[in-house]
């Protein structure tokens, strides 16, 4: 029966192509606007690591002085990064499956003079777990080894753009990159990777691209690598040497953990609590015991990374879809009621009220789906245009989840527009119309 309804609906739509185009256009406009703004919102709201929801956390400890909170105006605030010594101590915890401290520096790269001039990119120092925690994609090689972390070895992971710049895009695993006065061996080349938000450090330039170069975190002390990112402190102690910097209470390390399961968060929290209590005995952590384990979506919300208006616009765009669908109710009502004589004949010949209803619902759903397809194409173009004006615009695209949402919206739009007209047409008593045709 479904096939017959489908054939009947297609014939009906072909009968008046201009009216059909008008209906499809109405839905397409609504789908285009709603999908574009829902996608924009989705880009900011979604968990970039959906397979690890509830397991990947950004770790913060309240190591601030007793006189005031991290943010003077917010007594509940907690320092946004860790001290070096806390990061080192947290690494001793056996609970996380993976963990990494992390910070950014800037180093001069000296390419082959025939290829490029020296330049100074950002370099992120991490442990090898970083690549697994954030599911960083590789096109050649992979992360360095655990041993390379421990020694540490002079190894490097570079991104696709750096690989193209230095090595013409070929497999450069095993090749050497001269950074400052040292040679680093390339062990991995990232595949093009542009998450919508730079999730590894959302507190700074969140919409920027990930860093192009990664080296082992444990080079920090031997090479006395200073950070170029943000740091904060509360203790008025002069810092003149790198050793003083490392031993200070200044916070400048981001710390991420991946727990084996969501249930481990409690155990890890207990471990952090007892760590803070131990540190209190040593005269540190002057404030009440406080730590924070925050998911990536939690940080997005906490740092207000979604631009003002995106949420409101996504709601308005859904209302726009509803209004444009409701506008079609009148047109469909006219179209369907004009067909009452035919419907009456079908009823006389054995069609039930439900069959007539579904025949018409299928017709409007065809309109809805066609409108959805056109709307998705239009919204793809709009998103591309919108992306040109955004720092993270490359990531603004329809993913499979948003395609499903757009399809769902077109089905709903069809239902909004068509259910009432379909119900009206199937409710007309057939006997009234058969005699007067």
């Amino acid at each position, binding site marked *: 029966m479904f096939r017959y309804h489908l054939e009947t609906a297609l014939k009906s739509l072909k009968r008046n192509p201009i009216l059909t185009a008008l209906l499809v256009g109405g839905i397409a406009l609504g789908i285009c606007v709603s999908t574009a703004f829902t996608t924009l919102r989705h880009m900011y709201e979604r968990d970039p690591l959906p397979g690890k929801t509830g397991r990947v956390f950004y770790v913060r400890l309240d190591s601030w002085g007793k006189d005031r909170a991290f943010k003077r105006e917010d007594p509940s605030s907690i320092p946004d990064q860790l001290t070096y010594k806390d990061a080192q101590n947290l690494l001793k915890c056996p609970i996380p499956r993976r963990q990494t401290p992390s910070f950014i520096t800037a180093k001069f790269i000296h390419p082959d003079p025939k290829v490029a001039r020296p330049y100074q990119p950002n370099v992120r120092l991490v442990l090898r777990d970083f690549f697994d925690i954030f599911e960083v994609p590789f096109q050649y090689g992979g992360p360095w080894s655990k041993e390379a972390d421990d020694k540490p070895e002079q190894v490097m992971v570079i991104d696709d753009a750096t690989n193209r710049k230095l090595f013409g895009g070929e497999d450069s695993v095993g090749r050497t990159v001269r950074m400052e006065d040292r040679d680093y061996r390339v062990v991995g080349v990232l595949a093009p990777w542009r998450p919508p938000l730079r999730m590894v450090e959302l507190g700074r330039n969140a919409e920027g691209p990930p860093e192009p170069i990664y080296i082992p975190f444990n080079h920090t002390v031997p090479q006395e690598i200073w950070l170029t990112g943000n740091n904060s402190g509360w203790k008025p102690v002069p810092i003149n040497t790198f050793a003083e910097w490392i031993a200070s209470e200044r916070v400048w390390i981001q710390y991420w953990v991946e727990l084996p399961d969501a249930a481990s968060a409690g155990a890890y929290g207990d471990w952090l609590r007892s760590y803070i209590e131990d540190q209190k005995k040593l005269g540190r952590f002057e404030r009440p015991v406080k730590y924070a384990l925050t998911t990536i979506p939690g940080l997005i919300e906490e740092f207000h990374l979604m631009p003002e208006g995106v949420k409101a616009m996504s709601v308005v765009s859904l209302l726009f879809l509803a209004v444009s669908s409701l506008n079609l109710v009148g047109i469909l009502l006219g179209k369907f009621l004009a067909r009452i004589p035919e419907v009456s*004949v*079908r*009823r006389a010949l*054995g069609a*039930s009220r*439900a069959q007539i209803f579904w025949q018409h619902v299928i017709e409007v759903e065809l309109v809805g789906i066609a409108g959805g397809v056109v709307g998705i194409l239009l919204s793809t173009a709009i998103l591309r245009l919108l992306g040109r004006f955004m720092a993270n615009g490359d990531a603004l695209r329809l993913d499979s989840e948003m395609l499903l949402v757009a399809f769902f919206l077109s089905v709903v739009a069809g239902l909004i527009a068509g259910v009432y007209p379909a119900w009206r047409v199937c409710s007309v008593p057939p006997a009234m119309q*058969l005699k007067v*045709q």
Partner: protein
Amino acid sequence: MLEMRNVTKIYRTESIETHALEDLSLSVGAGEFVSVTGPSGSGKTTFLNVAGLLDTFDSGTYHLAGQDVSRLSDREMSRIRNSTIGFIFQSFNLIPDLDVFDNVDVPLRYRGLNAASRKRRIEEALGMVGLSARAHHLPSQLSGGQQQRVAIARVLAGDPKLILADEPTGNLDSSMTREIMDLLERINVGGTTIVMVTHNPECAERATRQLHVFDGRIVDLERPRATLAGE
């Protein structure tokens, strides 16, 4: 085949009640060819709509092919209309966008028959009404008589036990009228019960039994044919 007892049908508006059928009782046996005559507004079409389960009634009982159809759901009534009853209308009621083949196919689709079975039935039915060559013509490309033959083919394809015909020759000239009546007689001879509403005394005469409806009641039931013909 068709047995109504004390059937009443009242149309109500805010201020007026119209008794379209008034204690109507009637029995039509299997294989009968019954004509129903009566003045305009006497309730002929209402009777046919009630008999065809296209309209409900207010009181009384109605048995069709041995089944009490007085209080059925829309789905059950639709199923009976589709499998047991065939309709022929004065204005043919073909679907203008469908060609002859697809028009005849409509009731078979709602019956859920497979494509091969539908095709066989449609071709047989069109052969019986002499329109095999016009299977892919649109109704607008056919004469009135041909359109009514398509409507009859649509009925024949469904192989109903009962045919309800409402002024089947009302829009046709005398030659076409004879042709259609011949066809109906042949169908009746095959065993199908026919109840035909008509204004045409000649057509009424060709039925095996004539009924007269007046003010919503069946009158003149079992009266001699000659008396009715003279009215």
